């Protein structure tokens, strides 16, 4: 366990100093600060648009960070040859991969926490800002779910990084994220359409079963537009987190199997 934690903390230290990540984060934060100024987009729906935009910025920034952070993680270690100094010590490959992954998730968590703080600050400081802390707590449900989502995305990227080049991985993981984000609604449309052929339904069902469904974590709609009360929402959060953890487990185990056989 000790080597895993050491590798994880070192990875965090490295990640939070990577310029490209900091730039992405900075752009995200900048957008969050200027978002309330985009008055053209807000109508009488008051903070609806602001909420939607802010959460969107957090999600998008986190996704880009998650991918950029993880696709280069293993290749960088190999290129800098630090992986050899580590693997020649009594460190198993699975420990190395797990440590790297945990480090990525921790770094992501830190950056997302920072964005969430900015989210709160902007909401309190904006003109006519809220002091309603129940509302703020409600707002924070989305970033919390995004964190699970991004952890899953990081697992996808780190899984691919055990056997493809970073650039390919960037598009693979990014594509997977888009697909996984869009498939749920698509699948629902298919299912609700009585004209869908049975074969297509079956196939779509299969894909929906196998695909990492990132859309599961897109819980922002009722938060942006608090018009409906959702029963058992807490339970859903637990279930969907479980789903994420299981899926991350699958990706990491396969990743370890591949990485174990890989010549670095």
């Amino acid at each position, binding site marked *: 366990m000790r080597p895993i934690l050491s590798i994880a903390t070192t990875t965090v230290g490295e990640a939070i100093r990577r310029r490209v990540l900091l730039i992405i984060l900075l752009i995200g934060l900048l957008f969050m600060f200027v978002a309330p100024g985009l008055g053209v987009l807000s109508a009488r729906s008051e903070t609806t648009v602001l909420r939607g935009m802010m959460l969107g910025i957090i999600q998008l920034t986190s996704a880009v960070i998650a991918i950029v952070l993880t696709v280069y993680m293993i290749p960088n270690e190999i290129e800098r040859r630090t992986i050899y100094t580590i693997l020649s010590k009594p460190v198993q490959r699975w420990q190395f991969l797990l440590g790297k992954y945990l480090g990525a998730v921790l770094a992501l968590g830190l950056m997302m926490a920072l964005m969430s703080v900015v989210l709160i600050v902007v909401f309190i400081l904006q003109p006519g800002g809220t002091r309603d802390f129940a509302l703020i707590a409600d707002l924070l449900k989305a970033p919390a779910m995004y964190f699970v989502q991004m952890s899953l995305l990081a697992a996808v990227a780190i899984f691919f990084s055990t056997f493809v080049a970073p650039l390919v991985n960037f598009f693979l993981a990014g594509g997977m994220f888009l697909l996984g984000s869009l498939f749920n609604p698509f699948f629902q449309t298919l299912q609700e359409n009585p004209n869908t052929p049975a074969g297509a339904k079956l196939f779509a069902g299969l894909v929906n079963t*196998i695909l990492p469904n990132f859309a599961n974590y897109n819980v922002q709609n009722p938060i942006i537009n608090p018009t409906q009360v959702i029963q058992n929402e807490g339970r859903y959060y637990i279930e969907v987190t479980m789903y994420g953890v299981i899926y991350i487990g699958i990706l990491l185990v396969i990743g370890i199997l591949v990485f174990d056989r890989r010549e670095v």
Partner: protein
Amino acid sequence: MKRSGASTLLAVIAVLLIAQGALQRAVVFPFWSKNYNSSGGKVNSAMDPQQMLFALLGFRELLAGILWVRADAFFDTGNYDAILPLIRLVTILDPQEIDVYATGMWHIGYNFTDEEQRSDRRYIPSALALGKEGAEKNPDTYEMFFETGWMWWHKVDDDYDKSVHWFKESQKRADILPARKDILVQALQRDGKVEEALDTLFRLQDDGIARRERDPSHGADQTLNTVVSNLDSTLVRMVQRGLIAEEQGRPITGYDVSPPFDVGFSAKVTVLEPMVLRVEGTWNVLPVGTRVRFILRDIDYPHAIPGGMVWDFSDDVNLDPPRDKTYMMDQLFVKNRRFNRKVDMSKDPTMYPFTSDKYLLEFYYNPRSAPAHIQDKFGWNGEGMTDKNYLNTDVRKGQKVVYCSFEVTRDQLLRHGEWQDKVPLIKTPNFVERKGSYQGKDEVTLDIPSLRGGGATAPSPKTPVTPKPGRPLTMPGN
């Protein structure tokens, strides 16, 4: 890794795969699609992160298209608030989407209404600014110029020089449909520029003849027929309303417009309940078609002018009009020389926030907006109209309008404070109370004796009207 270890791991993977699949299909997905899916129409969001990603990747037009489809769904469900940001985004992403500009403008101008279908006038400047922006971004086609002109013409229904400007601009564009050219003539007439309207009609007639020679289709024929018919009636009206006589230096007495007719305006406003008004009054014009504008607004409403607003005070498309201000505008329909309307503003707190202390009640009548059969008496510019008490030539330079205003307080409107038990009653000094309601049971039946005549006095509602010969109470009926 040892082979046995690997096969254990493979088994673990298989179990986990089944577990996640089951969780996804049995638990997560049904819950998600019920509560969180945005395409279900139950909820809305401005823009999904995925859509934002598309935008960032440069698929602006594609995204604009997707958003517009989405906005369409909101139209279906009546979720109008959700459409505004989408419209703004689409126009920003793809300024060549004329349909979005046009629809957006119409949506902003017409769709925000209260429970009694009164438009939210606070949005009109936004609609006009959007139209202007659309025209500027698409200067090669007539459409946005025409649409903006239409908004001035139909929705503002007051500053006709603005609609004339925009309709003229639209006619400069080659792609304007011939049938859409006539409206400029109407706007010119309402703007008091009858001569120019006539010139335009002659020009349109020449154009129409030339067009029919090139293309002897049914459409060309019809368009020309309309122009000829409009030209015909305009000439007749110019004669009837004494314009030709005036031009030729002949006295215009004997025409309908002379001497001016006193409309005998009086009004009374009662605050029945908080934010519920009863507006009553007299308007001594018998034929239907009179609509008196009734406004209740913050006394310091930004850019307000008597009887209206500087509607194009800003070129910024501000979709967030003064939310804490009130601007209510309604039309009082005159029937049997009286108007009587209940104005209920209590159901729409977002439209009528009533946060200020002082308000202004306004009555405004501009004869330029009157239908042709009333203008036959009043003339294009109100030459044939007068009012003993409230005729006003200041609030609209060079025009004769009827205008009167009262200051009221928030306490009166909300029935707060000292007004909790007293019923606020505001009226013009000349308002004469009638017992009971005239509607239905107490209607006054009138004969219409003559086509010609001078001014009239408001009849006492109690006494049956017995007009003297040659002195008609009102204008010719329709």
